[in-house]
């Protein structure tokens, strides 16, 4: 009878007829769902559709129906075969994975640190992690331009220590992009991770210590399994948006490092090749849906496990 665990059948709504449910949901959920259909689902379907059309001589969208855009995406362009676009896809995935990995690496100690603080400090420490998130992403990103330019104290120190040749800068470059990404996405990893760390049953760890386990073994066998839910939620929250990021590579990479997001922007901007841009967007969309599907299969039914 209770096929849907989210509907509270003990309450009075349980007494409703099928029709009663139907028109009540139409009144409440209807407008919101209609909105998402009109401004999300239909636009995404439009993207999929034009990805099979052709760019006109001056950037119009024209028939005929074609697979050319996908062929081009695979590397078969006007000037011969060139595996450029697959490379960009792989590069974006690597950037997303590296960002998520580094965020995880940084978030773990932070989450444990916060979880071990006494009550009031805990809230304060958590707020401190979230506060930068309330300021604008663009501000936090371009600040790294200043920090990484050749005349900044950071680069001067590195130059004086001989880590960096004189007069050179860390910006623009891949390192700058990576640092900017980690800095921006870190809170998205810390929060879900903290939520899991907070719930850890420490008696397991103590038992492991009593049994003579070393710190790594304690972490690996007694703690890690307990924080897997937070870890995977954080991973999805960082990896998926990081892979499609467009602003950070643009501002910190000097417009030299093209990622999936920049490629899409370029097609809908200066190159005015909407069908090709749509094809790339579709691939990015498949990536996200695939990622979510994989996660849903491995960590079933926790309502996305957000935050």
């Amino acid at each position, binding site marked *: 009878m209770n096929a849907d665990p989210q509907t509270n059948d003990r309450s009075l709504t349980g007494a409703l007829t099928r029709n009663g449910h139907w028109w009540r949901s139409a009144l409440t959920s209807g407008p*919101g769902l209609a909105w998402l259909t009109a401004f999300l689902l239909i636009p995404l379907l439009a993207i999929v559709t034009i990805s099979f059309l052709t760019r006109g001589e001056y950037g119009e969208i024209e028939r005929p129906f074609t697979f050319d855009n996908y062929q081009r995406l695979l590397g078969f362009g006007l000037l011969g075969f060139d595996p450029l676009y697959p490379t960009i896809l792989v590069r974006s995935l690597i950037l997303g994975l590296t960002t998520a990995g580094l965020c995880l690496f940084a978030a773990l100690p932070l989450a444990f640190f916060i979880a071990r603080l006494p009550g009031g400090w805990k809230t304060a420490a958590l707020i401190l992690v979230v506060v930068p998130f309330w*300021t604008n992403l663009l501000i936090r990103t371009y600040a790294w331009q200043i920090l990484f330019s050749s005349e900044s104290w950071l680069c001067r120190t590195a130059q004086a220590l001989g880590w960096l040749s004189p007069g050179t800068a860390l910006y623009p470059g891949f390192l700058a992009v990576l640092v900017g990404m980690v800095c921006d996405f870190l809170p998205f990893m810390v929060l879900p991770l903290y939520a899991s760390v907070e719930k850890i049953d420490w008696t397991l760890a103590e038992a492991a210590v009593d049994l003579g386990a070393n710190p790594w073994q304690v972490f690996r066998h007694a703690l890690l399994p307990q924080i897997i839910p937070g870890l995977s939620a954080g991973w999805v929250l960082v990896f*998926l948006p990081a892979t499609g990021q467009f602003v950070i590579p643009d*501002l910190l990479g000097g417009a030299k490092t093209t990622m999936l997001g920049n490629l899409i922007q370029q097609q809908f901007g200066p190159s005015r090749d909407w069908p090709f841009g749509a094809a790339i967007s579709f691939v990015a969309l498949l990536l996200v849906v695939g990622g979510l599907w994989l996660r849903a299969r491995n960590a079933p039914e926790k309502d996305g496990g957000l935050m």
Partner: protein
Amino acid sequence: MRSPSPRLSVIAVLLYAFIYAPILVVIVYSFNASRFGAGWGGFTTRWYEVLLENAPALSAAKSTLLLGIFSTLLSTTLGTALAFGLARFRFPGKAWANRLLYVPVFIPDIVMAVALLLFYSLARQWFGLFELGLTTMILAHVTFQIPFVTIVVRARLAGLDPALEEAARDLGANEIQTFWHVTFPLIAPGVIAAAMLAFTLSLDDFVVSFFTSGPGATTLPILIYSSVKRGITPDINALSTLIIIVSFVATLATTLLQRSQKYKNLKSER
């Protein structure tokens, strides 16, 4: 539970420094007299004076606020109703509705932005609707705000004790009365939290606004982006410092407010 070890504390402090470094840099450099580059040219408050006369910055601040307020009002209303429906009623295709809800959360901004750009331009060609401008930006922002609002409010609804609503019905309240007098006051904190989240998302958004904006609808993020692209930042540093201060104060105020609210609730429960 033990308190954090010294080693863990040092690592944590370093990580906090890493998160806050960019913000501090912007604040410090907003007082830098040097117009170009990262060299220090002495202390000045000149850029704040320049900013006050910067008409585009002021109008961008206005657009940003208008956009944030209207989109938040709309998305909070729609999202709350949507959450209520999802939590209380059954309808065919509900599983798909749940899935649709998560698409804007994870989809790259740029894909959503170009999809809306395409949709608007098709709608304009066929029906003459959707001239790019503040209205199209509001519609776009509402679209990515609704899911976040719904997820937050639904979580609050799930934690509700059904006995309260049942009691109201037993006392003769109809469904609508029950919602307004019992359910809504109970989920109000969740709705407010959701609205705040939606508002922040709107203020923070650059990519979707960038693609759906029109003349005179430049928002602060768009303004900052184009200035940074041109490589001139002194008055943008000043602008950013002001934005940082405002968001810090707002965060602090709401946190304190929630605290005192909780405290009051505790007291009244006793």
